[in-house]
């Protein structure tokens, strides 16, 4: 797969996203093999590994998480590559710049692979000259693995209350999302942001993700059901260039899950099982789980199902369908998933009719609140939260809007059920609002800034 799509340059730093699951473990092993072997098709890039601990989201205790981290560390150390252990809590410390898609090399459109490689090496030499001889590559590598090793202290920091905000904030944020579907989407978004950040900070320009053929098919159908039809090719294709400077690659997407399991079994590749959001949930708990079980059932009856879905996905393009009206709008990007927005309202489209019916029968949030909590005073003291979401929604694509809508609409319901004391409710609301608003505020400025920048760029040319 890597040989077919030649997009990794020799000596480039590539980040492997490792989750402990079968596919990413086997990806790690195959990269190791490719680097060690004296074969003709030797891989020539410099890998690093990232592991993201999401225990906080699934409600695991710190002890359990530490145990998992230790297991992961053992495997990663055995691989001999520099590695980064990151906690999902750190997503709150991300700078807003993660939300921008940068392209630091305008001359990326090289025609042949050779030219591209030459370009790349020239560019790297320039960079190294700039940085000076002081920070040699070895130094930086040492720094990387040092960072990886320091995870225990950081976990301890999470444990001791000097850094309590982000831990509780994260579990609150996910607590505020009602449905498992939206939770999984949110987790995926945050995870991507974190990976991107780590990759940028450590100078990786490619990220490899272990999505198997089965996973890709499930993702295709799931995203279709989540209203992300416009981005199917981007979300599941071999290379995903939406982030500009960092390319996300899916080198495992041709192998079905079964083959990978066999590979792991035959070559003794160790895997780690970590409970995720969907573990122990029923088939119908979320759209993701439902589609997965549906495809597996269908696959056992019609064995070509997964490969057909996969090949259908191959035929889709990342470029959006042309808009009929000749208005050249700026290709704005979704705030969360960084895809070009698909929310231009066309005549007779599903979105238009949806907006119309929302307009015709608006949800009465304040009324609901009063009906259930009539006896409690101060129920309607807070203004409805709709104002905040209306500020955020126009910046999102259709699929992310759905996720954020659930994040916001939950607040009314939390308020309505009033199981917890009012103060806690308010905190949950304000927490997720803060998060959203802060992100909007931060990214808004960045967005307008970058947009202006690119506009002036275009003007110059």
């Amino acid at each position, binding site marked *: 797969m890597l040989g077919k799509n030649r997009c990794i340059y020799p000596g480039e730093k590539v980040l492997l996203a490792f989750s402990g699951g079968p596919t990413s473990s086997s990806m790690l092993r195959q990269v190791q093999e490719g680097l060690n072997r004296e074969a003709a098709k030797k891989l020539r890039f410099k890998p690093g590994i990232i592991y993201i601990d999401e225990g906080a989201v699934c409600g695991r205790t710190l002890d359990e998480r530490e145990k998992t981290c230790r297991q992961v560390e053992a495997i990663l150390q055995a691989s001999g590559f520099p590695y980064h252990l990151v906690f999902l809590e750190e997503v709150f410390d991300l700078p807003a710049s993660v939300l921008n898609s940068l392209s630091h090399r305008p001359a990326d459109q090289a025609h042949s692979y050779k030219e591209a490689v030459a370009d790349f090496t020239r560019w790297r030499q320039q960079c190294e000259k700039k940085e000076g001889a002081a920070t040699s590559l070895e130094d930086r590598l040492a720094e990387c693995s040092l960072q990886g090793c320091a995870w225990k202290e950081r976990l301890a920091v999470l444990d001791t209350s000097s850094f309590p905000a982000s831990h509780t904030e994260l579990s609150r944020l996910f607590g505020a999302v009602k*449905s498992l*579907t939206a939770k999984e989407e949110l987790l995926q978004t945050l995870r991507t942001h974190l990976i991107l950040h780590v990759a940028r900070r450590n100078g990786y320009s490619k990220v490899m993700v272990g999505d198997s053929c089965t996973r890709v098919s499930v993702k*295709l*159908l799931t*995203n*279709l*059901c*989540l*209203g*992300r*039809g*416009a981005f*199917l*090719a981007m979300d599941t294709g071999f290379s995903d260039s939406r982030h500009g400077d960092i390319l996300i690659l899916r080198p495992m997407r041709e192998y079905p899950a079964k083959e990978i399991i066999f590979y792991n079994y035959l070559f003794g590749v160790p895997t780690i099982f970590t409970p995720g959001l969907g573990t122990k949930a029923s088939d*119908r*708990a*979320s*759209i993701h789980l*439902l*589609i997965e079980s*549906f495809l597996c059932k*269908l696959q056992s009856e019609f064995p070509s*199902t997964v490969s*057909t*879905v996969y*090949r*259908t996905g191959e*035929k*889709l*393009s*990342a*470029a*959006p*369908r042309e808009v009929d009206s000749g208005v050249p709008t700026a290709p704005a990007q979704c705030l969360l998933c960084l895809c070009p927005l*698909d929310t231009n309202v*066309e005549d*007779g*489209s*599903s*979105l238009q*009719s*949806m907006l119309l019916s929302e307009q015709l029968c608006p949800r009465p949030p304040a009324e609901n609140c009063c009906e259930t909590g009539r006896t409690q005073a101060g129920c309607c003291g807070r203004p409805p939260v709709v104002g905040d979401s209306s500020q955020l929604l126009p910046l999102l694509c*259709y*699929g992310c809007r*759905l996720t954020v809508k659930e994040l916001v609409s939950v607040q009314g319901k939390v308020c309505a059920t009033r199981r917890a004391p009012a103060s806690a409710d308010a905190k949950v609301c304000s927490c997720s609002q803060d998060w959203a608003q802060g992100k909007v505020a931060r990214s808004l400025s960045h967005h307008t800034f970058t947009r202006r920048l690119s506009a002036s760029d275009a003007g110059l040319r």
Partner: protein
Amino acid sequence: MNAIMGTIKEKGQDSTVLAHVLRLLNERHGYGLRLLLLSVDEGIAGYRDDSLAAVRRSRGRLGLPLHVVSYQELYGWSMDRIVRHTGSRNNCTFCGVFRRQALDRGAVLLGADKIATGHNADDVAETILMNFLRGDVGRLQRCAEILTGGEGALPRCKPLKHAYEKEIVLYAYFQGLDYFSTECVYAPNAYRGHVRALLKDLEAIRPSSVADLVHSGERLAVRKDVRLPVQGTCRRCGYFSSQPLCKACVLLEGLNRGLPKLAIGKTNRLQKALLEGEKPRADLETEENSRVGRTIDF
């Protein structure tokens, strides 16, 4: 301008509501449409005869002319007879292909300009999922559009595309519309059944997912370099088709030869065989049969 509505759904409420709404709007806003009802009789005992009775009753209420075309008179085969030949699988392939053509033929017969069908949002979402699972990229691109067809065929529109099935049933219920609703007796074995069950589950998890699917279908972009089938016309009957022979003709040929499974699955070789067989009919008969025998084994 003429418009024709077909009661093409096996569940009658969609087309009943469509006829009602179109007539109402036509009168209220003076669209100047001449509405005609067209119904297809597949010849399924215990299913279509009851629903046709309902259609006749609603014709009386709506005061619109009704025409019925039957598979028996168009093709010489009723669905019941087909099922007796094919067994319990793949019936819906026959029924669907024949119905599509029967509607077009009926509409041409009546001199209509447009066909309005009672497809609702659930149907469209289901079709999108079906086409994705089958890998039919050409249809995948088209199926979410509100107005399809164009040159060659009569344009079809789906006025109820954004209405959920539930809304339509509720509308019919509260308007006191007389409709007929049962599952087709042959439907439970169809592939579509799986997809329909999935869609119901999806809707239970997140009610907006039907509309989300339709949105996805509208925004899907197929790569430029993918070879899409070119639309031509059938050499035998003149109906539009992406192959030299249209699907209905191929299916019919299979039925008439007593080999109904012939046209299900890969049909390239059969197409060729049939086209060659067009002119020197008698000579190739034996050879064709042997060829056909091999495809069936597979």
